[in-house]
């Protein structure tokens, strides 16, 4: 039981470090697209690890409560929703024509819109 407790604590610390890295990335990255990248990726893993840690730490009062099921539901929910919401956000940023950083090498999406493979996304 002791080992599980320490494992849970370690997972919690790792998760919170991931969250910290996500926010550092949020501060340092040069344009919106890279910020969304770092923000969602690290914060998704951070949330998953932290909730796993919380679930393991709560095994101590296992008998009286029902932690672990809700922890699993929460993790699955985060895995499904987080990428989708940031995808929608990134699409919105692209429609608003927020410029890429100057380091950006290729933009196939723009090329395809120019070549009429894809119709221009327009705002009404």
């Amino acid at each position, binding site marked *: 039981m002791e080992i599980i407790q320490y494992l849970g604590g370690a997972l919690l610390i790792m998760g919170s470090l991931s969250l910290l890295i996500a926010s550092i990335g949020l501060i340092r990255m040069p344009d919106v697209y890279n910020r969304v990248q770092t923000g969602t990726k690290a914060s998704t893993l951070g949330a998953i690890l932290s909730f796993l840690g919380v679930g393991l730490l709560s095994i101590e009062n296992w008998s009286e409560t029902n932690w672990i099921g809700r922890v699993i539901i929460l993790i699955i929910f985060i895995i*499904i*929703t987080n990428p*989708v919401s940031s*995808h*929608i956000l990134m*699409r919105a940023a692209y*429609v608003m024509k927020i410029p890429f950083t100057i380091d950006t090498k290729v933009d196939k999406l723009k090329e395809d819109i120019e070549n009429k493979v894809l119709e221009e*996304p*327009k*705002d*009404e």
Partner: protein
Amino acid sequence: MLRNLLISLLLLSFVYIFYNLYVGFTPKTELDGIAAHYADKGAAEIGAANLVTAVVVTYRGFDTLGEVTILFLTASIIGFFLKLTEADENKVIIHRGTSELLVTSSNLLVPIIILFGIYVFMNGHLTPGGGFQGGAIIASAVALAILANPNMHINHQIILWVESISGVVFVLIGVLGILLAGGFLDNRVLPQGQFGTLLSAGAIPIIYSFIGLKVGAEISNILEKYQKSQKES
């Protein structure tokens, strides 16, 4: 200049008010009168683990009926003022195609979100939450479905039926309370059951479920009307 001065004056007066509140604050150390009665005897009389639910549904159940009615009135008034005509029904929203990912994930998530809403209002007597919160969660599932597919057709009849039936059942259970137990909306029309399980606290889970369905249907109704008023051309 004058504007900045006014803003800082406003902020200063806020600071003054909150400072006075903070200084004059004396914490209540003991409950008075009726609150003490609820806190001491509530769990034994009602059998609900969540005391707030006991107060909202039983002791002050009549108020809850009023709140639900007010929500119904709000939905009706919104419907009245949006002035939807028959022609609005067939209009189509022209919009940039929704992302395929959002459509798929909303198909996957909507039933699960509604299930969670049902879970919240069925466990209203055990956990934080209850009818109003569960109803709002159900309505948020409807909102997600509308966002994923703006031209979606919502079955108006189902919403109306759910709303009316749950309203009628809510009042009927209240009247049963007068006939079988102590008074209007008394929860002891059903056996109390074992403390802390899903089917306990008499009629509270049933009453709260119908409140939740009613609230969910009402807010969905508002959403549906807004969706129709969005349609252009």
